[in-house]
């Protein structure tokens, strides 16, 4: 449903041009979940911003349903690093913002949010401001805002990186449950190998800058009951780690030449 065709991205940082991505080809299939992983600064965030329609490629094109993406699309929702919640809006106002911008009537917003809040177990937080929430609760509000839009594709940029280990695993399970239940296609950028293996049916490994796709690892066992404690989970993590190491070393060698 979403495809990147020979996508390159160069942006200017002061007076120097930085190439973030080079010749990326990728097909996102409906109903699948993808995890993008790679060394820091490899253009992971740029990749997700391109998919979200927040950035335009300097070369190539990003297409959703065969149509070029030129601005944020109604069927995609994006969750940013640090949650992207507005400190001056209450939990309810934050979560309602997407629907409000789409001019959904207030009564309908209340119905949708009521359901989503109950599902994410944050109903008791509705009148609070983001600075009164724990990290995990903030992430749930960000999820609520995204889910309230009933997206077909959920894009997430390191959504859980600021959380402690247990909250993080907890929310990984929550995300897994939600994308299965609502049949949402999901692209997740992460720097955690375990998270990539736990959530990605396919794991996309990017090279150091400029980001290219080095490997796409199939992860057919993803989503099985108790995968985290399964031997095959650890084997897959090792496989991904080895691939990351090989490619980061070859990247260093290339830079040295």
């Amino acid at each position, binding site marked *: 449903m979403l495809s990147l065709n020979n996508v390159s991205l160069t942006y200017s940082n002061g007076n120097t041009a930085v190439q973030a991505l080079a010749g990326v080809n990728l097909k996102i299939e409906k109903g699948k979940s993808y995890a993008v992983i790679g060394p820091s600064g490899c253009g992971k965030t740029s990749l997700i*911003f391109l998919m979200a329609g*927040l950035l335009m490629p300097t070369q190539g094109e990003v297409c959703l349903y065969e149509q070029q993406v030129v601005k944020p699309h109604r069927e*995609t929702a*994006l969750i940013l690093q*640090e949650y992207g919640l*507005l400190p001056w809006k209450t939990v309810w106002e934050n979560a309602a913002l997407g629907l409000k*911008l789409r001019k959904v009537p207030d009564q309908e917003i209340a119905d949708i949010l009521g359901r989503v809040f109950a599902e994410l177990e944050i109903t008791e937080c509705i009148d609070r401001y983001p600075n009164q929430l724990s990290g995990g609760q903030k992430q749930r509000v960000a999820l609520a805002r995204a889910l309230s839009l009933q997206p077909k594709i959920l894009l997430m940029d390191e959504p859980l990186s600021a959380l402690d280990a247990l909250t993080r695993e907890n929310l990984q399970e929550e995300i897994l449950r939600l994308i299965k239940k609502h049949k949402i296609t999901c692209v997740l950028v992460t720097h955690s190998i375990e998270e990539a293996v736990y959530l990605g049916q396919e794991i996309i490994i990017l090279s150091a800058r400029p980001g290219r796709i080095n490997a796409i690892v199939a992860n057919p066992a993803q989503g099985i009951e108790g995968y985290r404690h399964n031997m095959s989970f650890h084997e897959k993590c090792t496989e991904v780690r080895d691939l990351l190491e090989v490619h980061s070393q070859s990247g260093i060698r290339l830079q040295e030449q």
Partner: protein
Amino acid sequence: MASDYKNNKFIILTIAILILFLGWEIIALLLQNPALPCPIPAIAAFFQVFPQGLWKHFLVSTYRVLTSLFLGLALAVPLGLYIGRNSKLDKWLSPQLYLIYPIPKIALLPVIFAIFKIGDLSKIILIVIIIFFQILITTRDAAKKIPANSILSVLSLGATPRDIYSHVIIPGCLPEIFTATRISLGTAISVLFFAESFATVEGLGYFIFETWSRVNYPEMFAGIIAISLQGFLLFLLVDLFQRLVCPWLYT
């Protein structure tokens, strides 16, 4: 909890007032100069003079300060928000701002009086010119500092540039705009005091200078108390307004 906090604040304010009056009393006793009376006769004079006509000067000055503040905000805030989010315009305008900002614009008083005559308008214009730059620069810098993450997250929800202003940039800058308002309020009162010192028969500045020329120090001090009270009450008003408009800052 909340009432405890309120009680605490009340106690702290009472102590602050006591310290202020105690300090005043001590300095007045040490100096023994009729120009600085002790607090009790000064306050007594205030209560005597205020109903007799000081209230009129108080109202005129308050009107001038509030009108100037309102005009200054109405002109500087939208421009500051716009310049702060438009780096090309900022590049053009910043050097001019840096040239104009340090000019002591109070020195323009004769020019303004010559152009706009000696009524209310010239005083208001002088204050507006001075506070305009304070508010403009603070607002511009606040708009520049809005985190990209906040803007991107709202853009991804399908926001238009107008939505970005109303949901992100304006509320994000409000705390700094209130800070600028407080600073400008102090400036406005000081400038007005100076502007009212001649060519007028109304306002607290006039009252203080007039009583001074008659060497009526207790009455002069009643005027000083009135202008201090004016500053204090307007500060409270700004605080109250901020509480209403920025509830998230008080959680």
